[in-house]
C-alpha cells in the first residue's frame, strides 16, 4: 500500500516570547507510515510529538521539509475529509450533548442530518456513551470527554486516524476498550498514527514506532524488528526475583509478573546458562529469540541517545 503519511526532513523552530531567540521544536524529522498499519510516535514530554502531529494537520507550518497526507501535500484540505484527529486532552463546546456535538462536527464532513444521526448513534454505542448521550459535554468526566473525542475523530469513517494520547484519562477498562477499537479499525484497513506515553499499550498494538527525543527522530522501524536482540536468546525460567538474584551474574534479566524471570543470553552461552539455572533449582520455561520490551528500548534510546 502507498504511504498514508510521509514526512521528510521536517524542522520547526518557535520564537521565544519577548526574545529574538528561537527554540527548535522538531529537527529533521522523517516519518513514513504505510497504509493499514498502526504507527506509534513515542518520546518524553517536550520531545516534539505534538508539534509533529500539528505539522501533519497543517496547524503548524514547518520551517523546512516536506510531506504528504493520504497522497496530498501537507496543508491540502481535501485530505482532511478522510482523516480523523483526536487532540491531547481534548476540549469541546461544553453546552452541546454528545449527539449534538457529533451532529455539529458531521456538518464539516458533508453528512446530511439522517446520515449524521445514524453515524452518531453507532459511534456513541461504540465508545460506550449511550447512557450519557443526553448530558451536556461540560458534565462529562475526563474519560467520557476522551471517549467523545474518539467518536468525533471516527465520525467520517476516516481512512486515517491521528490520535494524540488516545488513552489519556481512561481507566484500565477504558484503555482496553480503546485498544480493541483501534485493532478493529486496523482490521478494517484503517491507518492509525498515534502518540502515546503508554509503552505497553503501544507494544501491544503498533506495527511500527518512531522514537523522538529533543525534537529529533532517533529510532524508527517495525516493532518486531526493533525489539529483537540479534545474537541473543531470551530464556525464561521459573523463580521470579529469586532467579534474577541467582543468575544475574551470567546475563541481565528481570522478574516477570507471573512469577517467572526473563534473561537475554548470548546465543553461544545458552547451554551453560540453562545448566546454571537447573543447578539453582529453577525450571526452564522457554528459549526464544532475544527480545526486549519497548520500555527497555525506549529507556535505552532516550537515556543513551542523550537528552
Amino acid at each position, binding site marked *: 500500500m502507498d504511504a498514508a503519511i510521509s514526512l521528510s526532513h521536517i524542522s520547526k523552530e518557535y520564537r521565544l516570547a519577548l526574545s529574538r531567540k528561537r527554540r527548535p521544536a522538531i529537527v529533521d524529522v522523517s516519518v513514513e507510515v504505510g497504509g493499514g498499519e498502526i504507527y506509534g510516535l513515542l518520546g518524553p514530554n517536550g520531545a516534539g510529538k505534538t508539534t509533529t502531529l*500539528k505539522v501533519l494537520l497543517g*496547524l*503548524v507550518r514547518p520551517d523546512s521539509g516536506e510531506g504528504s497526507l493520504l497522497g496530498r501535500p501537507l496543508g491540502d*484540505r481535501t485530505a*482532511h475529509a478522510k482523516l480523523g484527529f483526536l*487532540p491531547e486532552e481534548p476540549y*469541546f463546546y461544553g453546552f452541546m450533548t454528545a449527539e449534538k456535538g457529533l451532529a455539529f462536527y458531521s456538518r*464539516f464532513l458533508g453528512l446530511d442530518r439522517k446520515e449524521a444521526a445514524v453515524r452518531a448513534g453507532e459511534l456513541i454505542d461504540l465508545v460506550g456513551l449511550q447512557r450519557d448521550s443526553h448530558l451536556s459535554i461540560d458534565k462529562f468526566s475526563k474519560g467520557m470527554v476522551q471517549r467523545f473525542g474518539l467518536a468525533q475523530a471516527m465520525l467520517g469513517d476516516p481512512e486515517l486516524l491521528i490520535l494524540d494520547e488516545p488513552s489519556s484519562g481512561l481507566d484500565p477498562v477504558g484503555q482496553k476498550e480503546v485498544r480493541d477499537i483501534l485493532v478493529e479499525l486496523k482490521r478494517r484497513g484503517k491507518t492509525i498514527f498515534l502518540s502515546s506515553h503508554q509503552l505497553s499499550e503501544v507494544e501491544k498494538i503498533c506495527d511500527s514506532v518512531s522514537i523522538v527525543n529533543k525534537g529529533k527522530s532517533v529510532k524508527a522501524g517495525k516493532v518486531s524488528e526493533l525489539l529483537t536482540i540479534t545474537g541473543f536468546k531470551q530464556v525464561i525460567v521459573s523463580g521470579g526475583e529469586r532467579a534474577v538474584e541467582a543468575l544475574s551474574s551470567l546475563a541481565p534479566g528481570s522478574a516477570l509478573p507471573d512469577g517467572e524471570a526473563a534473561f537475554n543470553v548470548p546465543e553461544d552461552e545458552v547451554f551453560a546458562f540453562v545448566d546454571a539455572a537447573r543447578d539453582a533449582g529453577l525450571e526452564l520455561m522457554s528459549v526464544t529469540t532475544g527480545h526486549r520490551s519497548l520500555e527497555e528500548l525506549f529507556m535505552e534510546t532516550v537515556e543513551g541517545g542523550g537528552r
Partner: protein
Amino acid sequence: MRNVLALSWQVVRDAARRKVFYVVFLFGIAVVALSPLLPTFELGLKAQFLRDVSLSLTSLFAVVLAVILSVGQISSEIDRKTVYNVLSKPVSRFEYLLGKYIGVLVSLAAILFVMGLEILLLVYLRLSVFTPIIFEGIFAIFLEAAIISAFCICLSTVTSVPVNILSVILFYLVTHLKTGFLHQQLIEGVKGIAKVFSWAVYYVLPNLENFNISQRVGYGHGAGWLYMLRITGYALLFMIIIFGIGVLLFRRRNL
C-alpha cells in the same frame, strides 16, 4: 458555505448559552427606568429626548456586546484547543474566521433588533407616538458594532483577551475622537512623530462618529437613505479591510 453556516450557528448558540441575550432585558429595564426622568417638555420634545437617549444607551450596550461576543472568540478557542477539532476537518482558516464573524454579527443583529422593538414599544406606550424611524438609528449602531467586532476578531487571532480589550478601548476612543481632537491637531500643525501618528490615525482608522445619528433620529426625520447607504458602504469597506487583516494574521499563525 456549509462550514461557515455551521460555525455561525455555533457562535449564536454559544452566545445564548453565555446568557448575553439577558443584556436585552437589562437594557429594557434601563430604558424603562429612564422614562420617569423625562423632562416636562411638550410631547414632541419628549419623544425626541426619549428616542435620542434610548439610542445613545443602545449604542453603549452594542459596543459592550460586540466586545463581549468577539474579544475571545478565536484566542480562547486556541487556548482551549477547540479550534483543532474544527480545523482538522476539511475547514479552511478563512471559513473558520468568517463563520465566527458572521455568528457574532447575527447575534448582534438579533439583540439590537429586540432592543429597537423595546424602544419602539416604550415610546408608543409612554407617548402614544409610533416611531419606526428608530430602526435607522439601530442599523447605524449595528454597523458601528460590526466594525468593532471585526477589530476584536482580527486581534483575537494573535493576542490574548486582556490585550484585545485594552486595544479595542483605545480603538473606540481614537475612532470617536477623529473628527474633533485629531482633526484639530492636524490643522493646527503638530510636528514630528506626533504629526505622522495623527495623520496615520486620521486617514487609516474609520470615523465611528459617522454612525452616531441618534440626534437626527431623535428629531424624527432620520438621516436619509443616501446617508444610510453611504455609511453602509463605509462600514462594509472597513469590515472587509479589518477582517481581511485578521484572515492574513490567522493564516500565518501557528496553532
